[in-house]
């Protein structure tokens, strides 16, 4: 018997780390350019151009680092979106649980929307480049039942999997993916959408709902 899957959306972490790394790299480059210009090693550009270039590099770097830092700070406040989902079978309804930790101040009032999306993804070699193509084959809003909890957002999501849809497929160049997208609407959290890659098994469900306790 397959177990429930715990899926976390950590794209914000990756974005934040990437922005901070870009900021640090650009900061070092900017400092290097500044030192090189003023010590006379870079003579091909004028002092005015050098000031402009260094300011630009340092400005973009600083902005990237700031965005990354703020994103990390925000993650610390609202937590990592998590979806606990039972095995998904064709034609069945699975009850998943969505959770996102956070303080009462941040999540004073909130509303959750969710949708299920299925899509085909292919990749193909054209010369030395690899091209990709995607087609959405299924898209449907899901029923969400909010849970009252002391901290953060918690909701039960009924995932209706269509009977005649293709199950998940993951090969080298060809994939069929199923995503659950969850959007938390709340005054202090601006456009907070999470997405979770779920697996649809090549099994037709019996018609009784399965879910997490």
């Amino acid at each position, binding site marked *: 018997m397959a177990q429930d899957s715990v899926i976390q959306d950590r794209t914000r972490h990756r974005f934040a780390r990437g922005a901070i790394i870009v900021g640090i790299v650009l900061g070092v480059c900017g400092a290097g350019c500044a030192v090189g210009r003023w010590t006379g090693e870079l003579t091909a550009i004028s002092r005015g151009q050098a000031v402009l270039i260094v300011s630009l590099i340092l400005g973009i770097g600083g902005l990237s680092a700031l965005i990354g830092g703020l994103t990390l700070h925000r993650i610390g406040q609202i937590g990592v979106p998590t979806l606990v989902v039972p095995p998904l079978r064709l034609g069945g309804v699975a009850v998943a649980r969505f959770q996102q930790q956070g303080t009462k101040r941040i999540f004073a009032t909130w509303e959750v929307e969710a949708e299920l999306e299925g899509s085909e993804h292919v990749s193909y070699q054209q010369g030395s480049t690899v091209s990709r193509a995607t087609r959405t084959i299924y898209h449907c809003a899901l029923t969400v039942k909010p849970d009252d909890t002391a901290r953060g957002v918690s909701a039960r999501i009924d995932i209706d999997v269509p009977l005649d849809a293709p199950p998940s497929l993951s090969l080298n*160049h060809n994939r069929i993916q199923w995503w659950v997208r969850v959007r938390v609407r709340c005054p202090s959290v601006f456009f907070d959408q999470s997405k979770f890659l779920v697996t649809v098994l*090549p099994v037709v469900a019996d018609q009784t709902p399965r879910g997490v306790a």
Partner: protein
Amino acid sequence: VSAQIEVRLDHRVVECGGTVAGTVRWTGNRRGEPIVATLRYGVSGRGDPDGAEVARVHVGLDEAGQAGLRLEVPTQGPVTYNGQLLRVRWQAMVFGRGGSRRKMNPSLVMVEVIVVPQGWMSVHH
């Protein structure tokens, strides 16, 4: 002259985790080369092709004969599918190599199989 092979499947539609079953008859396998049956899937379409052989059995070595055929379909599929960008097809193949070895002239019989999800038959029939 290549071996003459005839394949008859009990069912063309098989569920994931099920078995492709049938009968293979052959004649003219004069050199006693193995008659081999395989089950494979292939994915074609806009993307680069994918595919794999999932089962292979030796059916017989005699010059002529008849044998049962059983090829297991994996529980994870994939299922037969005809989508917008990709297409998944399954084939059972039986082949031998009768006549001269130099000619390398294999007999090959291909039968398309439709693989459906587990439990699909009980819902649709």
